[in-house]
């Protein structure tokens, strides 16, 4: 076989692996969650390689009607990073289904990461993990942040940052976590995102400003979760003319009106 055919075959194999991994690491697009609207967007920095460093997940909790939402970002690139992303996803799913609360889920994830590989490889990750329970007028949310960018809550056109300080995962056995409880009224949305957004760059090499993200979210007042996630990704993609090096993930959880 001619060399170019080998190259083409290798390219196709890599693309297939990347697509399979992406499907495995991303949340289902529209799980049936009564009382909630759930949406996610993902944009890999490369469609050609199995080089996935972010993940999001929406999984039904042990208690009927409760949902767990997670977004994570691992340090590193390539297959090891993708493998760690997968391990995080499956560990969180298992711990949620065992009925653990948000802090316990994240602590158990940290333990699993340390057991799997120590600091020698500096395989660390940041995660926001929230449990959401819908009711007829909104939803109660408990948020834990392990070193990740603070999520936003969109209430009408007002944007609140959810500050829940906590340690990164996979490095130290003694992590500190803070659980923040908040209320989403009908139409309010919790927005989780990765630093592929805030590290996107325009032609002038300027970083995507947090203020611009707030403006985009504010302009989404009254819109459903899917439109919010889509608007954020569209604006970052329009700004990010250089196709920055990091993956982008956005997860939106909204209380139904």
């Amino acid at each position, binding site marked *: 076989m001619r060399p170019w055919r080998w190259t083409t075959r290798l390219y196709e194999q890599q693309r297939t692996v990347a697509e399979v991994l992406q499907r495995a690491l991303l949340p289902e697009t529209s799980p049936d969650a009564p009382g909630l609207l759930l949406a996610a967007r993902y944009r890999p920095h490369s469609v050609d390689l199995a080089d996935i460093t972010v993940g999001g997940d929406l999984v039904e909790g042990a208690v009927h009607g409760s949902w767990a939402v997670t977004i994570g970002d691992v340090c590193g690139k390539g297959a090891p990073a993708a493998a760690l992303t997968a391990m995080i996803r499956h560990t969180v799913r298992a711990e949620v289904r065992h009925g653990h609360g948000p802090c316990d889920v994240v602590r158990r994830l940290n333990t699993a990461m340390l057991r799997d590989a120590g600091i020698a490889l*500096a395989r660390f990750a940041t995660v926001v993990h929230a449990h959401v329970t819908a009711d007829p007028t909104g939803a109660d949310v408990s948020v834990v942040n392990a070193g990740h960018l603070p999520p936003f809550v969109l209430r009408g056109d007002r944007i609140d940052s959810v500050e829940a300080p*906590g*340690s*990164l995962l996979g490095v*130290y056995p003694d992590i500190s976590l803070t659980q923040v409880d908040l209320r989403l009224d009908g139409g309010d949305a919790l927005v989780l995102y990765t630093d592929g957004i805030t590290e996107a760059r325009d032609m002038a090499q300027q970083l995507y400003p947090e203020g611009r993200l707030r403006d985009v979210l504010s302009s989404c007042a009254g819109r459903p979760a899917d439109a919010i996630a889509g608007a954020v990704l569209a604006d970052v993609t329009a700004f990010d003319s250089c196709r920055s090096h990091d993956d982008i993930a956005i997860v939106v959880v909204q209380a139904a009106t």
Partner: protein
Amino acid sequence: MSEAFEDRELDADGSRLVVSRRAEGGDVTIGLRGELDLATLGQAERAVQEAEQEASGLLVVDLSALDFMDSSGVRLVLIADDRARTEGRRMAVCLGEGAPRRVFAMLGLLDKLQIVPVRPDDPPDATAQQP
């Protein structure tokens, strides 16, 4: 007072990352200026590893003059800190008051590492505050 003082830039070649090295007695400070990300990480790692061989006292990785740092910079520090603990050496990081400090604070690392302040006698370009 310094017995032997050396202060020189190692990579003034137009790279997005400029590495400076300051040796004073047995202490060595590796200063990083510009952008530290996956593309420039190797350059910084080499400088830190060379300094580890040389420093008989405190090794300081100075991130305070970086304009941009992603998780690569955190990885650099965590690995160097782990090596120092394993080998019984002293290692600290200088964050300044700008973006690097905010990154390390967000990750919950300020109480995990030895943090030293920016030296008042550092050259102006090494003490510039982040936007």
